[in-house]
Structure formats: structure tokens, C-alpha cells
């Protein structure tokens, strides 16, 4: 309703291209030999902003963060608190984890044909897949 452009929604992408952006964030602001953002700025924006005052608010400045103790969150268990990303109502998720140097992107059109379809969340698809990645890393180190 804003002509297809919003600060909150409106971007379309495939996983590969979105991953490049997440990798740039993960790299501390560089990709392909170009600096896009200062690493100090990224550090400030990707850390939890109100964790001390407000136990329920896990969010960074715009970026989502893993759950806090006792509250729900967008990621699988055991993921580093340094990680950040965001999910989307259409059934999407993009997550970057500096501690394991991982970028994870899941895209779907879960709201086809109906936005009432909540199975994606009920089945924990996005987080279960994320868990597989971390389990695989662990197994690889064994």
C-alpha cells in the first residue's frame, strides 16, 4: 500500500543473494573487497539493546537475536548470543552467527494460499533445519 516499497517489508530475493548481504554483516561490513559498513557500527546495531532493563526484549537495533532465558525466540537452541538475523511473515528466515561463521537462509511462501496457515511455526521447520546445521558442525568435529 506504499507502492510496493516499505521500510518494514517489500524486498524480494533468492537465498543466494540474501546470503551475500548476511555474509557482509558477518564479515564485519565488507564483501567482495568493498567496505559497506564500519565494524563498530555493526557491533552496535547487532547487539541486544534492552537486555538489562527489559528481560523480555531480546532485540538488537533492528536485528532479531536468539531467545533470552525463559522466553521464546526465533532460533534453535544453543546458538551463540552474538548471532543475529530476522524472520519474515511469509515463512522466511535469515541468520548470521559470527561464533561459527554461519549464514543460514530459509525462504518459503507458507502463506500461499492462506496466511492463516501456521504449520511452518508449529512444526518448527526453520529452527529444526538450523539445528541440523549446528549438529552437523558438532559431528564434523568429533
Amino acid at each position: 500500500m506504499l507502492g510496493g516499497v516499505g521500510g518494514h517489508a517489500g524486498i524480494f530475493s533468492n537465498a543466494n543473494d540474501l546470503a551475500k548481504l548476511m555474509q557482509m554483516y558477518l564479515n564485519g561490513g565488507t564483501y567482495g573487497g568493498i567496505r559497506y559498513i564500519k565494524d563498530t557500527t555493526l557491533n552496535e546495531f547487532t547487539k541486544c539493546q534492552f537486555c538489562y532493563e527489559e528481560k523480555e526484549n531480546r532485540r538488537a537495533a533492528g536485528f532479531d537475536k536468539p531467545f533470552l532465558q525463559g522466553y521464546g525466540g526465533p532460533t534453535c537452541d544453543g546458538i551463540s548470543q552474538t548471532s543475529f538475523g530476522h524472520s519474515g511473515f511469509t515463512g522466511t528466515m535469515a541468520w548470521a552467527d559470527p561464533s561459527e561463521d554461519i549464514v543460514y537462509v530459509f525462504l518459503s511462501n507458507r502463506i500461499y494460499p492462506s496466511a492463516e496457515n501456521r504449520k511452518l511455526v508449529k512444526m518448527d521447520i526453520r529452527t529444526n533445519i538450523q539445528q541440523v546445521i549446528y549438529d552437523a558442525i558438532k559431528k564434523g568435529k568429533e
Partner: protein
Amino acid sequence: MYRLGVINAKFEPMKFKITIGVLLVSMLVITSAFNSKINNSQFKRINDTPPFLEESTAWADSIFKTLTPDERIGQLFMMAAYSNKGADHLKRIEGLIKNNKIGGLIFMQGGPLRQAELINHYQKISKVPLMVSIDGEWGLAMRLDSVVKYPWQMTLGAIQDDQLIYEMGVDIGEQCKRLGIHVNFAPVVDININPKNPIINARSFGENKENVANKGVAYMKGMQSVNVMANAKHFPGHGDTDKDSHKSLPTINHTKARMDSVELYPFYKLINNGLASIMVAHLNIPAYAGEDNMATTLSKNVVTGLLQDSLGFKGLIFTDALNMKGVSSLFEPGIVDVKALIAGNDVLLFSGSVKKGILEINKAIERGEITREEVDARCLKILRAKQWEGLDQYKAVEKVGLSADLNKREYELLNRKLSEASLTVLKNEGDILPLKRLDTLRIASLSIGEGRVSEFQQTLSLYNQVDHFNVKELESKKNARLLDTLRTYNTIIVSIHKSNKNPWKSYKISSGTKNMIANLTMKNNVVLTVFANPYSLIGFEQIEQTAGLIIAYQNSIYANEAAAQLIFGGIAANGKFPVSVSEKFEEGTGLIIKPLNRFKYTAPEEVGIRLNDLSPIDSIAKSGISEGAYPGCQVLVAKNGKVIYNKSFGYHTYDKKRAVLNSDIYDIASITKISASLLSLMRLQDEGKFSLDSNLSAYLSKLIPDSSKYGDLGLREILAHQSGLQAWVPFYIKTIRNKELDNIIYCKDSSTYYPYRVAQDVYISKFYPDIIYQRILRGPIKEKKYKYSDLGYYFMMKLIEAQTGERLKDYVADIYATMGMTTTGYIPRERFSLDRIPPTENDKIFRKQVIKEMYTIREQQC
């Protein structure tokens, strides 16, 4: 130490045309050289005892004692077996094993499982366990299907890290062992000096003797580390000829000094590193044989004098196949075998007739041309080799899991690394590689030879928008239209693809292709990648006008993927040209290209993750589809800057009409917050045009009246959903009257007043966005506590546009372009076919159609 001869290691092709006069003189020198015997001290020995001669002889001795004199002669024969032939062949081999007690089999074409069954069968009926061999220069795939196909040795010749070659040797050794094979007739250590060599050529590591020797040693040591015999061939050097010893007896008319210093060098090196076996070629080398038209295989001067006495080789000596024209045209079957044996060979490969061979050898013993003790000694040497190969504890090949064991993921990972490490950059004008400033490039790719979009082109597309063109072949005259189209691009990536079937296939580049390169390079930047034999560049002067020139040596999938990644800076280039093709491009040329920190696309094993351990992703993704959680999805995982998993599952819709592809474009909804808004805000902060510690009023005084409490909202609070903004406002409800879209707000045609598309045939008033902001500003601000809200991001768009002076859509599009994020952006229908966009809601309430536009209504916490 072994001294270099008078001739330098590096040769121009055809530099050694010897004039008749010189030839006569050199022939005289040769004759006198042989009169005075070869000077032994010239070849200093360091460690020339092969490992199989350093072990106990107990088993070999005990077997030897059970053999009759004829059976001892039988051990010297190794015959060819196929796993793709019928019952007659099987019977023939059974006869050779049962009746003639042959010592071994060389397996030719076929498949691994069939071969395993045959090996088990033949071993079972053999009195003494058989020594099994294969020509596996680029792995078992040289003969067998369904196994790992490593690069040809010429490709490996470009690699600067010989450890990779060693690891390949280990892996090939393991694969041989797993399939019951004990000898691999590799490496080829011929120095390919003649570009027209019809049979060695790309099977050689190149024209530099040090490079050939070092890589040969690495390959050999790798295999022998797992008790598989390496075999250096084709002694004393098949590299400088334009003839094929399968068809005739090639003549090499070099002096002994030249042969000693060049051709012999790699053999010398391998022998002094514990080489276990060697293969003698059928060549006419008067300088060594001491006579003309005497095959080296049958020459005592060569096999005994040169190889054993001078070079000190103590390992197993195999003849090249005795049925090849190079020797079979000289003598009858049987006679050839005797001559080879007398010359000093241990193993008689692919005899024309074992029966006649044994008969003639017995006759020769009677005639005193060779003693029985000598024959027995060779039999014992073969048995000792068998003991080292593990045949003293023979076990049948386990068929269960054979295919998986022969095709381990680690093998393929190394194979990929070998292709990457071989990439050689011969030109890089203006530092064009890796491609930079993607936002300024309009790139076309022209693939010649495949007639389809090549893996090379597919990989290019992972990095940027690249328009693909491909042709099977270019005829010189019919290319005007293609040329015109290509010239509209400022960067053209041309690739030449030749057959990857085997190194003997033609690699000739057509005049049509050459003309195209010439025409394109006149006005455009051309990056050319050649997936073909490096000698294809001889006489291809047009390459000198290219901006970037990459040699990938062969047209394997790994080479295709690697070269594309090199062009975009996903991987480095470290290879050096293993041969010379012109004055400009000599052996050793190769520019180092550093990667540009863009994604590399590879196997998960490269980052220490097993693909198998990631496979639950597939089942989870598929379960979501079967349970109706979504019709299709895309999953990507990158670790350490490397994409290790990128897959699509399902369809665009549940009616399964169109499968989803990795290139499909999804509505990412709220990920927009971090991929557009936050990207912009962080950059603005770097430029001093934004601060998390400011309030909205600091940037949006025009939009927000001084009196509004919205101006006091802190940006940090807004972005962290802590500002008290309500979750959302159902704007769309106010635009519906009597269950229909309000026709003051919407129009079915686009116009100046109704510019914004909401859906097919639904356009919204140009005033509506302002109305939205007014409605938000009229709304309440609640208690400052955590509440996910989109509303703040409506203001962020305005803020970004105010501070950048650009539309948000355009501002982020410019950034995405520099990163090669081709698909990412707002309003994809303006840039892409709708086929690539999986639909979101089938909206029955508001827009009443299947939606491929931004999903705006009822967006809420997710």
C-alpha cells in the same frame, strides 16, 4: 648429485630439429659411447631400493618352492582382462590362469562391481594369488565407469602445491586396494616436449623436467604409502615424438647426453625415491639401444644396461603391452617374449601368446641365452612384490558398499581442489580479474562448444547478472548478429569447451571461434577461459588481445565451476603453465590472482561438515511440503564464507505445476527490515547522518508536527521494538466499502493519480501513502515495553529517504548492485518474469487474487 646435462630443462617446441650433418656426428658418438659402456658413476644413487625388497622373503620363498619350472615362467606373464566382455573372454582368462598359471591380470574397460566379481573369481581359481593392475593415470576412471575421475596429468602439472598430488596418490591407492588392484600404471613421467605428441601429450605433467619429476614423486609416494605399486612410464621417455607406439615404433634421435639430462631425469628421481615398478616403452632410441630399429623394450642395453646397471633400478620392470605394433610388428608372438625377457624385463605384459612365450623361453634357456636361475630370480621378485601388496594375506573384494567406498565425498573434495589449484591466468590486463565494481558491468557470457548453458555459465550467475549465449560451434561467416548483440555489453566472458572424454580427443579451435575473439576484443573487454588442452593456444594469436585469459586445461565440471569462481573472486588462481605455446606464453607463466572475499561455492566437507550430516535438512524441508506448511522452499547454508548447501524443494503452488528453483525470488517480508532499512541506517550512521541516540524529530520534522509526541520517540527504542508503538494498523480495512474496494482510493487502471500497483488491475491513489502516515500519527503511543511493531519502520523509510536524498528503493538497489545481489530488491515484477516469483497469499478478502506483490496486509509479528 645428478648433474644437469648440457641442455637446459626448458625447450621450445621443435627446437631440436637436428640437421642431417649433426645427426651423423651424433650417431658416431653413440656408437663409441656403447663401445665404452655406460658410465655408472654419472647417476648417483641415494635411496633406490623399493619398499617391497626391504621386507622378509618368507612367504615368497614358500610359494616359490611349490612351483614347477613352467609355473615359475607363468608368473612372469600379466594378461589383459575386461569386465565388459562375454563368456568367451572369461573362458580364455580362466584357461590362462588354470593352464598357464599366469602371474597377473591387467584390467581394461568395464565397471567396478563387475570387475570385483571377476577378480574374486579369477583369484579363487588361481594357484598363486594374482597381481592385478590397471592403467589408472587419472584414477580408475581411465578404465572404469562410476568412479572418481581425477584431472589429467597435464592439468595437475599446473598445480604449485605438490602435497595435493601426494594426497591424490593416496586416494587413488586406496581406491585401487578397495577394488583388489595392486599396481597402478601411473604416473606418466614422460616429458611432453612435442606438442604434436599423439599419445602422451596431456597425460604428461608438462615439458619441465623438474616439475614432471616432482609431481611424479608425489603421486608415486602417495600410492606406495598404502602399498599400491606406482609405475613410472614410459621408460626411457615417450615425450618427444609425434608417433604413437601402439601403431608403430617411434624414433627418438637425440644424443645420449640430451636423453640423460632430460628424458631420464624424472625416472632417475623416482627411482631414488623408492619407485617400485617401471614400464619400458616401445621406442627406437639409437642413442640408448646402440642400434637402429631396436625397440627399447627388447634392448638389453636399455633394460639392463641403462635402467638396472646405470640407474640402479631394482624394482619390477614391466614391458609395455607386447601386442602393440611397436614390437609385435618386429617379431612373432613368443619370440617377442623371449627377447623382452633377455633384455631384462620382469613382467611380460599383454603377451601375444602365453603358451608360445613359455615354450620359447624354455628353448632360450636350453640354448643358454638366459639361465633358469635368472628366470627364477625374476619369479621370486614378482612374488616378493605380491607379498608387499598384501597377497600373502589375500582377501576377496567385498562387494557390499563398494560403490560408496570408491566414491567417498573426501575423494571428490580433493578432486575439486585439484581443479581449482590448476587454474592458470595468463593475462590480466588492467587488473580486470577478479571482476570488480559489479554495478558498472554489463556482462554477457558466450560459451562455445557445449550448445547449452554450461556449468561455467551457471556458476557465473551465482555472482551477478550475466546474460548467457551459447553455441555448439562458430562458423566464420554467420556470426554478425551474435557479434552485434554481444558488443552491447561492456564485459564479455567467453569460454571454449572441448571434449573431456579423454586426453586424446581433438582440441582444435575453429577459425570461427578465433575470428569471434578477434572481433570482440576490438571494442570490448573480453575474459577468455579455455577448457581445453593448453596446446590449443598454439597459433591462436587472437588471445593476445583479450583482457583476461584463463586456462582451465580440461572441460570437467569442477574446472567449469572453479573458473567461474575465479573470475568473480570466489577463489584464487595460483597455477603455472606446464608447457610453452608461444614466446609470450612460456612454461612457468601464471599470474597470481587473489580472491576478493566473495562467496566460494563448494562441498560441505571443505569446512569440515559431512554432507550426510546435512541430509536431515532435506527431510525436514520435504516434511513441511507434505504436511502442507508451504508448497515450496529454498535453503542455503554458508560457513567460513563458503556456500556449502543451496537447495530448493517443492513447487510454487500445491498444484505442483512449477517446481521451485534456486533462482526463484521470494517475498522475504520482514527480513526487509535488516536488508533494506538497517543496511541504509548503518551506512547513514557511518556518514554521521544518523544516530541511534537521536529522536525521530531530529530527522523527520517535516512529517511529524512539533506538537506530536511521535517526535520524541527514540530511534534505538523504535528499532528494538521498545518505543510503545502499537503492533500494527489494519489500513486496508478502511479502504473497503461494502466488501468491495473503495473506488475513490483504488482504480483498476494505472494513472498519475493512481500510480501504485497493489495487485493485478488494482492501483492505489497517490495520496494514500500520506494518509497512512497521518493515520499512524493520530494513533496512540503506549507504555514503553517490548512490542514488535512495523509502524516504526514506516518512519525509517521516510528517514532514510530524507537523509540520503534518494528513494529507498533506489538507494538499496545501488548497494545490492555492487554486491551482485541481482534478485534482491523491491517490486520484482519490474525486473523479472513473474514465473520466478512463487505467489504469496491467495487473497480472498482484500485484493481477491493470487498475490505476487509485496505482502502488506495483516503483516504482524512472525
